[in-house]
């Protein structure tokens, strides 16, 4: 198997087609669709409640911390899925790769746990402080 860059031309064609479709549909809706403005219609939709003030107010950094920690641990848990899917295969194989992979996952989880302990001891998750 020896691919040349020219073999990937269909990808380029598909890219152009996809972009062209987006541009074409956006232009078409802007041209074809009717435009009716009214005060109520241009108002920001907030579940039927009248919006008050500016959205750009200072928000406690705690929300951000919790959100970013959630993302962090969430992403790290995702690494376990491919590991778990392959694990039975390693167990069935004759070599001792299963033990190695199990220990490696232990190390990974251990580091994750240490990070979690650090987060708790730092008091990031104590909301009222």
């Amino acid at each position, binding site marked *: 198997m020896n691919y040349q*860059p020219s073999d990937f031309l269909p990808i380029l064609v598909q890219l152009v087609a996809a972009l062209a479709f987006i541009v074409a549909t956006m232009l078409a809706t802007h041209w074809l669709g009717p435009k009716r403005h009214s005060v109520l219609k241009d108002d920001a939709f907030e579940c039927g409640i009248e919006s008050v003030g500016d959205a750009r107010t200072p928000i406690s950094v705690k929300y951000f911390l919790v959100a970013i920690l959630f993302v962090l641990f969430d992403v790290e848990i995702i690494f376990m899925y491919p590991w778990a899917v392959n694990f039975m295969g390693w167990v069935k194989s004759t070599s001792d790769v299963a033990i190695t992979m199990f220990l490696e996952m232990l190390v990974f989880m251990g*580091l994750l746990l*240490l990070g979690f302990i*650090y987060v708790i*001891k730092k008091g990031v998750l104590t909301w009222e402080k």
Partner: protein
Amino acid sequence: MNAIIALSLFGISNLFLGFLNNRKILLPATLVFILIALGLNFADWNHEYYWFNNMLKTNNLSVNFVTIILLSTFLVVAISRSFGDDDEHSHPAEYYAILLFSAVGAIMMVTFENLIMLFVGLEILSVSMYVLTGSDKRSLRSNEAALKYFLMGSFATGILLFGVALVYGATSSFDIHGIAQGVAKAKEQMGGAYGPLLYSGVILIMVGLLFKISAAPFHFWTPDVYDGAPSIFTAFMSTVVKTAGVAATYRILSISFPSVYGLWGNPLVYIVCATLIIGNITAVYQQSFKRMLAYSSISHAGYLLITVLAKRPETNSSLLFYSLAYAIATITAFAVLMVVSEAQAKNGKADESFEALNGLANNNPLLAFSLTISMLSLAGIPLTAGFFGKFFVFSDAFSNPSSLFKWILVIAILMSTVGIYYYFKPIIAAYMKKGEVAKIELSPLYKFILILTTTLTILLGLAPDLVKNIF
């Protein structure tokens, strides 16, 4: 290579040591941690080991580079003075932990055997540096520097990754020796020519790495970032990051791509000349000592790249010697700059201009003397380590048969002369200008480090063979 594992664990234990609420314990603990890592590093001496499924490889060259990196880290930590005593706004445990983690990244960058490890190491180092650059949270300039460094650095990493992907496309290998074979095979198939994939891949990898060592024209972030970051982290950046970056550049160019020298050598000629000229000429116009040191670090990247370009058998040892001499002198300069700029602070802001040094020698002879020796070393005046660093680099370039190197040498020597002008500015300020600097109280450790680095600079200038024989 157990140093990597040890440093990672030490970094984590540093984080937890922070919960003891005892700032005094952190500095000695970190110093001990680095010394243990240094000892583990020497265990690989005189062996060629592959580690972690051929991901990393240690040999004497890499052990030497790791020693320089850990020594620089040690010196930087030793002059950090536990980051003041502001419990609310400074977090010494985290800073020390991040410094240890970034040392791990730097070690991976000098021992990588696989381009994936180069990427991982570079990212560990860079991300740590983005955080540390912005660690002075209340300073606007520190924040600006961190954001600039982050945006540009992530682009550079992206470019490097793009280059890695293209090189993989051209040679179907991530392994640096495998790439060398792939390049040779591709050349054979194409009758001595090389395809566009390899060409763009090598150039993009080079761009990504040269950005990290701030070679022109990828140097624009350097002055702002070095100036904005807290001085202690600037010292770390300009020594450890530069050493690791140059080592990584040299490693990949000399192992993977020696057979396509024309491909990376030709652009590198212009990059070296541009780096030398821009770095040195711009440094002349600086009013701030710290900013001048930033431009000086750009120019030293140029000198280091000369020997990478010359591709001589002696390049290994010249690179090591130059990095060592440069690291020691730079850390001394930053150590002096830090205490003096804090003592001369105006309105709570550290004064980093040359004027802050006026009359330093009257009350602080040790600081002034260390500053002088480090500046002489950076300028390359004989009887200092910097002179022999430059001497070895220039003789590498001279012994390359290509006549092009004579012209590079002409530029390099002219620019060294320019360097003498701006490196003497702080010396003149310290000894000849009228001014008053109150006597600055130094801790015993701080004094010891200043004396140690100054002695080392002079010692290596008198007897370079002491370490040159090891390298």
